[in-house]
C-alpha cells in the first residue's frame, strides 16, 4: 500500500535519522551528567574537607591508565569508521577489535579500583564524596558496557560470511563512544585530581 508512494524521502536536514537521533540523545546525556556535576559542585563547595579527603583516597594512576585506555579506543573507533567507509574490512576488524579490548581493559581496571575500595571498607555510603564518586563512575561504566554490546556485535558480524558494511551505523555508534570518552575526560580531573 505504501510502497508505491514517495513518502519516504531523503532526510530534510541532510542528517540521517539515526545520526540526528543520536545527537539528540547525546544532548540529553549531557543534561544527565550535568545534574551530577551540579550536585558535585554544590556538595564540594559545602563539604570541602570531606571531598578533599575522599579524593586523596582515590587511586589516580589507575584512573590515568584508564584515561589513556579511552583515548586510544576513541582513536581506533574513529579509524574503524574511516576504514569501513572505504571498504577496508580487515582494518575495520583490527581497529574495532582494539576498541573492544580497550573497553574491556577499562572495565577490568574499574573492577580493580572498585574492589580495592571495597576491601578498604569504602562504599558509596562512606561519605557524600564516595556517593558521588560511585554514582558518577558507575553510570559512566554502564555507558561503557552499553557501548560494548553494539561494538562486539558489529565486530562479530564482520567475521561472518556476509560481513558488515553499514559504516553509517558504526559512525553513529562512534558518536556515542566518543561521548563516553568525553565524560571521562571530565570525570578524571574532577574526581581524582583537583579538589
Amino acid at each position, binding site marked *: 500500500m505504501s510502497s508505491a508512494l514517495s513518502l519516504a524521502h531523503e532526510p530534510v536536514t541532510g542528517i540521517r535519522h539515526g545520526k540526528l537521533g543520536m545527537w539528540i540523545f547525546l544532548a540529553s546525556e549531557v543534561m544527565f551528567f550535568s545534574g551530577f556535576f551540579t550536585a558535585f559542585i554544590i556538595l564540594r563547595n*559545602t*563539604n*570541602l*574537607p*570531606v571531598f578533599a*579527603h575522599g579524593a586523596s583516597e582515590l587511586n589516580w594512576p589507575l584512573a590515568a591508565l584508564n584515561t589513556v585506555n579511552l583515548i586510544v579506543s576513541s582513536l581506533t573507533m574513529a579509524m574503524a569508521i574511516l576504514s569501513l567507509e572505504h571498504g577496508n574490512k580487515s582494518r575495520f576488524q583490527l581497529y574495532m577489535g582494539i576498541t573492544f579490548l580497550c573497553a574491556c581493559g577499562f572495565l577490568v581496571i574499574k573492577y580493580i579500583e572498585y574492589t580495592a575500595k571495597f576491601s578498604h571498607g569504602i562504599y558509596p555510603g562512606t561519605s557524600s564524596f564516595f556517593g558521588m564518586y560511585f554514582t558518577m563512575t558507575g553510570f559512566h561504566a554502564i555507558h561503557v558496557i552499553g557501548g560494548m554490546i553494539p561494538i562486539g556485535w558489529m565486530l562479530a558480524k564482520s567475521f561472518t560470511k556476509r560481513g558488515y558494511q553499514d559504516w553509517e551505523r558504526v559512525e553513529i555508534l562512534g558518536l556515542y563512544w566518543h561521548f563516553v570518552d568525553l565524560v571521562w575526560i571530565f570525570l578524571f580531573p574532577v574526581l581524582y585530581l583537583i579538589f
Partner: protein
Amino acid sequence: MFDFSWNMLTYFPPGISTYSESLDDLFRLVYWISAAIFVLVQIVLVTFIFKYRTRPGHKSIYYHGNNVVEFVWTLAPTVLFAGLGLYSDEMWKVMKYSSRVPSPDVEIDVVGQAFNWHVRYPGGDGILGKRHARYRTAQNLFGIDPTDIHGKDDIVLTGEFNLPINKNVVVHLSSVDVLHSYFLPNFRIKQDAVPGSWIDVWFNGTKSGKYELACAELCGSGHYAMRGVLNMQSDADFATWMDAKITAKKAILAAQVANPQPEVATPAPSSATPAGEHGSSH
C-alpha cells in the same frame, strides 16, 4: 447547608502582624487585577462565541492577524506584569532580606521534629547557647554545645509557647529530621524548616491571644497533627511567664549541681577527618 461566600477575599484569617495588612493589600491588588482580566477574557470569549456562532448564511473572514495588535497585546501585559513584579519585590525584601530585618527584640530557636515543634528561649542570661548539629541527640534536639555556659540555662518548650506583642521577634528555624514548614496563618508567615541549616524568620505581632502554628510541609503520616500554639502576650504578662520559666530552670540546675547525674553521653565531635563547620551559623 452550603451557605458560604464565593468571594475569596473574605477568607483571610485575622491578620495580626505588622506586615500582614500590607501583604493582604498586595494580595487584594493582585486579586482585583486578575479578576478584571479574568472577567474581561470571559466576557470577550462568551461574546465571540455568541456573536460568531454558526448559522445559515454566516461566513468567517479570511484573516491571518495583525502585527500592530500583536505588538500592543504583548507590550501591555509585559508592562503590567513587570510593574507588578517590581512593585511586590519591595514586600519580598521586607520579609526576606536580612538587611531589612529590624533589630530583634526577642530571638528564639525553633526546630521541627516529626510531629512536634520545639522552641528554645535564651533563659536567664538572655543569650542562646552555641549549637552545632554534631551535638544533636534525641535528648539534645537543638544540639546545644555542652561546653558553652550560655547554653546551660536555655529553656526548651514543646508545642505551646509564648511571645510578647509589639516586639520584633526573630526565629532561627531548623529541623532535626525531615523538612517541616513553620506556618503562622495569622502572621502571614511561612518558612520551611530545613535540616542542616538555620533560616531566619521575623515578625512582629500586634494582638494578644492564642494563635495556631501549623506545619505546612509534608513530613510523614503525622504531618496533619503537627500543631503548635503560640500565645501572644502583653509585655508584662510575657515577662511574668518568662520569669517563672527561668526560676523553674534555675531550680532544676541547682538540683543538678547538688546531685550530679552522669552526663548523657554527648557524641564526640565527628571523629578522625575534619568536620565541616557549616550548620553552626549565627
